[in-house]
């Protein structure tokens, strides 16, 4: 399997504090990885560091995306090269509609003008998959959206930008059962349209029920302590994380 992301012995700090202490992770094309772990163990830090958040510094190790060193690329370069991060708390951006934001993001990515007609058609299709009211396309990005609508809008962006590596950071947190189902449908649609790699960060396993998972990783205190197949999820469901914390 062709490798999309290869992380070796990665250390990441926020200010003076080291959060990740030598993480290894390899994601291949078309693979679905799940990163599990209790709150505050550094799962989101890993996702943000891959995207290039200015809040974190890579202090050691390697991070290669399609064979290229990620650490020298700006956030927008990473995005243009095909990395996508679905935010845990999407930011409200007044003054730009979902539709025109997505169009300019697509244009930034392709470097070409995006034809309005094709774009609109595509956007409406994707919104339908997510059961979103079309009116959201003309609303300011995330402004006044409910938690569920914000997460759906993140998934909508993922479907439109069609990344080669999509990281979903706690996309299911705070959502009711219906919203989780919709988000799962969105992820399934992404799997159907793309052979990109997926990294799903979560501390619960609800979102994974209808998804084929290739690899599961358990992170405790800034280290990946166990990697396995989908069976690891059942193990977590049965016993929680405490067994890994002790061992």
């Amino acid at each position, binding site marked *: 399997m062709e490798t999309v992301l290869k992380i070796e012995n990665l250390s990441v700090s926020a200010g003076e504090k080291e959060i990740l202490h030598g993480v290894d992770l390899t994601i291949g094309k078309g693979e679905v990885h799940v990163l599990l772990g209790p709150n505050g163990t550094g799962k989101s830090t890993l996702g943000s560091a891959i995207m290039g958040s200015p809040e974190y510094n890579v202090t050691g190790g390697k991070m290669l995306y399609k064979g290229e060193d990620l650490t020298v690329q*700006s956030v927008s370069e990473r995005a243009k090269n095909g990395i996508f991060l679905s935010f845990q708390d999407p930011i409200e951006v*007044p003054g730009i509609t979902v539709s025109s*934001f997505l169009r300019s993001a697509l244009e930034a990515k392709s470097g070409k003008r995006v034809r309005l007609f094709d774009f609109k058609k595509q956007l409406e299709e994707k919104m339908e998959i997510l059961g979103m009211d079309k009116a959201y396309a003309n609303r300011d990005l995330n402004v006044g959206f409910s938690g569920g609508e914000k997460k759906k809008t993140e998934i909508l962006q993922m479907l439109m930008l069609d990344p080669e590596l999509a990281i979903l950071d706690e996309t299911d947190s705070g959502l009711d059962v219906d919203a989780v189902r919709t988000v799962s449908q969105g992820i399934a649609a992404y799997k159907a349209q793309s052979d990109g790699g997926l990294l799903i960060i979560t501390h619960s396993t609800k979102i994974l029920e209808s998804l084929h998972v290739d690899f599961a990783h358990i992170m405790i205190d800034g280290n990946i302590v166990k990697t396995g197949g989908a069976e690891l999820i059942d193990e977590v469901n049965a016993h929680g994380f405490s067994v890994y914390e002790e061992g």
Partner: protein
Amino acid sequence: MDERTQVADIDRSVYDIRNDSSRDYKLEAGLTAELVKKISNEKNDPEWMREFRLRSLEIYNSLDVPDWGPALDGLDMENIVTYVRPNTKMSAKWEEVPEDIKNTFERLGIPKAERESLAGVGAQYDSELVYHNVRKEVADLGVVYTDLESAMHGEYAQMIHTHFMQLVPPADHKFAALHGAVWSGGSFVYVPKGVKVEIPLQSYFRLNAPGAGQFEHTLIIVDEGAYLHFIEGCSAPKYNVANLHAGCVELFCGRGATIRYSTIENWSKNMYNLNTKRALVAEGGKVEWVSGSFGSHVSYLYPMTILQGKGSKMEFTGITFAGKGQNLDTGAKVLHAAPDTSSLINTKSISKDGGISTFRSAVEVKKQAEGAKSSVSCESLMLDDISRSDTIPAIDVRTCHADVGHEAQIGKISSEAVFYLMSRGLSEADARATIVSGFADNVSKELPLEYAVEMNNLIRLEMKGSIG
């Protein structure tokens, strides 16, 4: 890095084109009674206006430069040329406007906007109007839109005599007096009873000559139950010497009438913009100001509304963007002089690269203004640590039966928001510009589309190069 934006990028050069002004008629710099008389002769003033000018000059000489706002040290009246007449006459046909001047306005998009979305246009170049035209169907409704000079000699002579500088008397402040002495150009608008002018009129003021002043006067009278949207735009190329703009706007809003007055000001950064705007609103009338201040080196600008009639209203929506070397002191004033009047002031200010933005508001509620409502809100965004933003609100309420509120907020661009937008592929410059445009959204929403686009272009232009 590849740069892409929401709206087409504009080139600062559009605003910076300088035309040769050596063939134009100019008075010598400085200010004397002789010069004022020359201007008066040049303009063929009626006798009352000639006297008005000379009286204003006396007042000017008796008043001090304001000492409570941004420094005016760089402005030396001995060096300002108060009157520059372009080498042409006013025309109602663009073909008759000299090539270089016409091209300037073409680049600024004025004739195109006129064809597409305006009911009439006045274009002033230095001290004189070079173009003035109003659509026939609008003129047929009895709407008058012309230059003040010819109106002073025509059918509306008496109306001008009784209204000119009645709202802003020359004794108001030194630069109002200066305006009274040397004013030239501008527009006169009269909208008769009940006439609703559905599409806007626009005047554009272009100052081309270096070291010159522009002192246009805009007098608008909207009669009972009528409606008018008036747009004012201004720009100038940059010179190394100080230029001065001391215009004056007077709006008379009749009973139940509505005036919307929009401005996108983009003077070059050697301009001292000491402009005075005032509106008088009769019973049930409404004045809406939309104001975007982007240019000039120093600005003093506080449009004032006098709510004289019962139930009259005002709304002020403004944005000020102070960049490097700019000290922009802007805001709004309102006087509640009748019962059940209401005012709503909503402003945003942005400062970057050491720019200073000061918001001043004055709300005065008179004893008789029972049931008055006033709400002032001011939000500031500072884009770096070397810029400055101040809020100076003044509230004076003389009745117990009024509802008056004030709110102010100062903030910075969140790095989280920049990260979010960049994570979708936007460059850092575009991400920041998007956030700033969003912050300015309250004003762009109030503007006709083309002007909203121009404003966003200006914001993007200002944001360019703001990243080290």
